[in-house]
């Protein structure tokens, strides 16, 4: 069983839902990103999404846009992040190797500029399990299908509140897990999550066993618990990135505490 399936299965057995954390790679610097991942795994994160900073993150709200700017100002590249994952997998800078699945959340252009074949090959070699590409919808997934299959990298699909009859089509071909976008708009914290996510997940479950994780807008333990109650896991991004934005290199401890609180709410 691959690491992604494992993460959801392990959560299921203990009746815990998976906690998925997003952080922007290289924000505020690579060393801190590395420390954050180690600390968050200890605090109970089941799966990581590492953002590759991009100049034009059109699917992201202000908090993640600013994280992207900070990482780019430090000169963070896809190679830096691939090397970082390799270190985390080999346990070079920690007492213990990171065993949780690691995915890259990246805009299509970062993969294309790198060369999609070379990118996926390096993902495999460094220990990256999947890619989430917000600007490659179902209609364009052929772009990555061959290379993802060749190197065993899961191309994780997204469904949105607007997907409607597209939901089943997407779910049938989904790999790894299905990223269920809770609300309209871009990434960011919402006070209230008005959503038909439960309806979406029911449609998915009618056609597929793929684990469903809910993302966009979630920041409080209550929201996490609510969203987890109808799904297999929750994705938290902006709320963590905001703490990193505030504390910078000192963010490891506050992030660990925050993540532990969310994990608690899911137990």
């Amino acid at each position, binding site marked *: 069983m691959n690491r992604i399936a494992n993460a959801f299965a392990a959560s299921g057995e203990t009746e815990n839902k998976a906690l998925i954390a997003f952080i922007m790679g290289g924000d505020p610097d690579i060393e801190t990103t590395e420390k954050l991942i180690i600390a968050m795994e200890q605090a109970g994160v089941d799966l990581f999404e590492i953002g590759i900073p991009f100049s034009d993150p059109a*699917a992201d709200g202000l908090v993640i846009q600013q994280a992207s700017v900070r990482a780019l100002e430090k000169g963070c590249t896809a190679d830096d992040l691939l090397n970082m994952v390799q270190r985390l997998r080999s346990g070079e800078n920690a007492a213990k190797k990171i065993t949780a699945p690691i995915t890259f959340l990246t*805009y*299509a252009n970062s993969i294309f500029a790198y060369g999609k074949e070379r990118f996926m090959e390096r993902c495999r070699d460094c220990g990256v399990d999947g890619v989430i590409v917000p600007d490659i919808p179902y209609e364009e997934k052929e772009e990555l299908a061959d290379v993802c299959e060749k190197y065993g990298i899961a191309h994780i699909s997204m469904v*949105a509140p607007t997907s*409607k009859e597209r939901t089943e089509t997407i779910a049938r071909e989904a790999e790894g897990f299905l990223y269920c*976008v809770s609300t309209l*708009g*871009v990434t960011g914290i919402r006070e209230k999550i008005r959503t038909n996510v439960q309806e979406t997940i029911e449609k998915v479950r009618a056609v597929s066993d793929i684990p469903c994780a809910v993302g966009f807008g979630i920041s409080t333990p209550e929201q996490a618990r609510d969203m987890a109650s109808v799904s297999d896991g929750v994705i938290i991004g902006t709320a963590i990135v905001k703490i990193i934005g505030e504390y910078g290199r000192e963010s490891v401890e506050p992030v660990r505490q925050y993540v532990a609180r969310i994990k608690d709410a899911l137990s």
Partner: protein
Amino acid sequence: MKGKFGQYGGQYVAETVMSSLKELERAYQFYLNDAVFKSELKDLLNNYASRPSGLYYAEKMTRDLGGAKIYLKREDLNHTGSHKINNVLGQALLAKKMGKTRVIAETGAGQHGVASATAAALMGLKCEVFMGKEDTERQALNVFRMELLGAKVHPVTSGTMTLKDAVNETLREWASRLDDTHYIVGSAVGPHPFPVMVRDFQKIIGEEIKAQVLEAEGRLPDAIIACVGGGSNAIGAFHDFIGDTTVKLIGCEAAGLGIDHPKNAATMANGTVGILHGMKSYFCQDVYGQIAPVYSISAGLDYPGVGPEHAYLQDTHRAEYVPVTDAEAVDAFNYLSRTEGIIPAIESAHAIAHACKIAGSMGHEKIIVVNLSGRGDKDVASIAKYMGVQINE
């Protein structure tokens, strides 16, 4: 509709907006062949935007350059002062038919924003325009013009604060409010069906050129020259001539301070294939795919990409794309003003500059048509600044 031009084009957008693109594609396919829609649009173009625009024989310029005959396609004389109104009237009418009550738009120089605000006022639609903060400063007059027309202008402070960032912000806004809102994309860029639809609403330029030049000269021109940012006026002028292989199609892109200088926006000269703003095309970018902070004196050409159909025309060598610098464009701006009494938009001045370069070496029997895509009133202040002239407003 496949939405691809060779490998270019496509629909590289978030899943959230896919259903709206599908809805738009269906509506467009339907109204494209709907007699009522077509006659309403024709009426708007003729009676509101004052089409057809003239094809003017620039006799003094022709004599002065001493070679090919030069005709100017006067898109500058359209209502709102540029070709942008052709596309905007089409899309706003379509939005209304689709039951949308609100339109949003990005703008660079402000011409598309003004055209969108105008059409929205006419058709009773709410209008919000996203414009890079830097552009709101260099085109302050157009900001006020949009406000006069009842639109709300949002200065965009992310990224390089120019056109590409305005597109990002409009895409974000659209993703958050799809039900009642149509995004009027201003150039032949973006995800399918926008590049096809914008081209179809602009191809009237080339169709008119063909009829007008045949009437005046009894034959097709030897070259059509247009400026290219995203490329809507160029694709509009070129499209009807793509099958006429004796007609050279020449796009002029903004070379800023020079194609070898870091400050330029010459996508065809310096770009590589990439994905941005929903499309695969050429983009100015670094080896990791970070989009380059491009530059041009012209806000309308200050864009790091180009429409996918142009990328295809470049690869297939059906069209040729040449760089024109700020300095050359400003010279052409002054030249056309003094020679013909026509102040061109600084964008269009890039096309004039190239005509000046090649006309002299062509025979007297040759014919060049330059698409004068917009008028230069909006640029007077920035040209004065460029030339070091103080103006007290």
